[in-house]
């Protein structure tokens, strides 16, 4: 017979109350696990989607030329006829320390040409990376596959009266319109897109790049650090983070995390109050028993140990079950919200954290009731006999 036998036997006897206590704390832990896991999962998903949604780093030539607005983004000092970025330098992008965070690199060459009395800005792009970068593009026809094919924006097609399959002369070269962009509401509507090698050829910019758009997956990566690493590698370029995009993404994630942390804290507080009230009630109910323990020679610390051990066992169970229930709830939520079957793995850190959190709350909430029990005067308890 040891103190833990008393605690365990008491818990066994009071199954209904123990269940109530476990459920009270379990709901709190499960809610926290579900909120955190769902938030984490959604944040990752959101970050991934946001990272996919356009570029967040720009590399422009180091020059003090005219500012050019592109796609609503300020490209900084860009001058067509001045310094350009060396295409060879782009190979070093994949050698930076955070290379794993670089999802897409989309180099561009700009050139102005005149046709049918209109000045038009042509952009040479690598269509594979450009299409991956601009997933919102909708093309009537197909994206160019040959250097002699071009893709033109919605406004440009109207201005130049160029339909699908029509021919367009650019700097004495003939191009076929293979696709027309549906209106995007951006500057893309006024542009003519052609292949990167083709544009370099006709604008006499072989081996040169006017600008590079980079999409970095940066939910947890320091974007400024990536910018610094790129700056070191590309001395001819000026690397800038598109702050409004980056900060917007981080703000959205942080707001979401703050909200879930706030709700988690509230739910845990309610769970702690359930434990406190139940343990206090339990101590009051057991006045006579505690009085007997005290009378037969249990020290205050012995009585505290019994109460806290009970709280520990209940909290441990609540933490473990709460984690499993929380994961189950998350799975259900993600299943309902996502088109694809969610992929959830058991996170041992979170499992240990849940159990630890439940135990901490259980013990903190039970500390006062345990102290009250330990401080009980045996004669007071015996008066109730």
């Amino acid at each position: 017979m040891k103190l833990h036998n008393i605690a365990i036997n008491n818990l066994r006897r009071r199954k209904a109350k123990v269940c109530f206590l476990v459920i009270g704390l379990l709901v709190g832990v499960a809610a926290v696990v579900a909120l955190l896991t769902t938030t984490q999962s959604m944040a990752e998903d959101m970050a991934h989607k946001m990272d996919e949604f356009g570029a967040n780093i720009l590399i422009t030539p180091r020059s003090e030329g005219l500012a050019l607005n592109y796609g609503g983004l300020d490209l900084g000092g860009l001058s067509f006829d001045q310094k350009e970025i060396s295409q060879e330098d782009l190979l070093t992008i994949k050698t930076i320390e955070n290379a794993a965070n670089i999802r897409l690199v989309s180099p561009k060459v700009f050139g102005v040409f005149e046709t049918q009395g209109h000045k038009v800005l042509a952009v040479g792009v690598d269509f594979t990376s450009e299409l991956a970068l601009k997933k919102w593009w909708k093309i009537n026809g197909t994206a160019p596959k040959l250097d002699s094919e071009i893709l033109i924006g919605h406004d440009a097609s109207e201005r130049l009266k160029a339909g699908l399959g029509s021919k367009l002369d650019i700097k004495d070269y003939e191009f076929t319109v293979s696709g027309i962009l549906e209106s995007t509401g951006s500057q893309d509507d006024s542009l003519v897109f052609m292949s990167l090698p083709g544009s370099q050829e006709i604008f006499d910019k072989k081996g040169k790049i006017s600008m590079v758009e980079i999409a970095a997956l940066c939910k947890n990566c320091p974007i400024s650090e990536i910018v610094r690493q790129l700056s070191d590698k590309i001395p001819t370029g000026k690397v800038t983070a598109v702050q409004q995009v980056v900060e917007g993404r981080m703000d959205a994630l942080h707001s979401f995390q703050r909200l879930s942390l706030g709700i988690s804290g509230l739910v845990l507080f309610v769970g702690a109050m359930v434990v406190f009230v139940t343990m206090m009630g339990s101590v009051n109910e057991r006045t006579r028993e505690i009085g007997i323990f005290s009378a037969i020679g249990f020290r205050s610390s012995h009585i505290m140990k019994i109460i806290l051990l009970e709280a520990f066992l209940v909290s441990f169970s609540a933490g473990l079950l709460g984690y499993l229930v929380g994961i189950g709830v998350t799975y259900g939520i993600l299943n309902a919200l996502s088109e694809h079957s969610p992929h959830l793995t058991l996170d041992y850190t979170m499992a240990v954290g849940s159990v630890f959190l439940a135990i901490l709350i259980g013990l903190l909430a039970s500390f006062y009731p345990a102290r009250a029990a330990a401080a009980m005067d045996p004669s007071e308890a015996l008066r109730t006999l």
Partner: protein
Amino acid sequence: MNYIEALNVKKEFGEGDAKVVAVSSIDLSIRQGEFISIMGESGSGKSTLLSMLGGLLSPTRGFVKIEDIDIYSLKRNKLADFRREFMGFIFQSFQLVPYLNVIENVQLPLAVTHHSEKEKKRLALSALERIGLKDKALRLPNQISGGEQERVAIARAVVNEPPILFADEPTGNLDSRNSEEVMKLLMKLNSEGQTIVMVTHSRTNAEYAHRIIEVADGKLKYSEAPIKLAV
């Protein structure tokens, strides 16, 4: 030599107009091995006196000495240790812990001692054997009769062989046959050397003791040897 001594003990409850004097300036000496009965009507202060003698209730004034130790000068934990080593308690209405079986209830005072589990079990079984309930060791309190529960309470009080046994109305919930058995058990324990202080309002049971003390209105009315000793 006096084994237990109460010197001018007084106990008051409440304050101001609500103040109640439960025990008023009692002096009492009990010798080692003595069996005394404290009698009195309800509210006379006999249970309060027993609580003060047993280290459960500190007096408002006066001292209680056991083996010449002023027990209320001891710190809370030391007093708990003292109770565990020197005293056994038999409470009214048995007061067994309902979720522990008979042997676990008997072992309760040993739960915080340094005895090995094997030794605890041996002591508990020995105590149960003395009261004749060894065969019911694994029953829960609600699975045995009232008389048996009282005997289990006695086994719990004596399992660590304390030199003093305090009993508060040990036969209060028993019929005459069970009462007699319990009293004989107490007599037996006393004959083995245990000092027993028992509160009762039954004259018949009180006469099992060497000495009867009557308390009325918180004061010692008289102390006498019973006319006949029931053995």
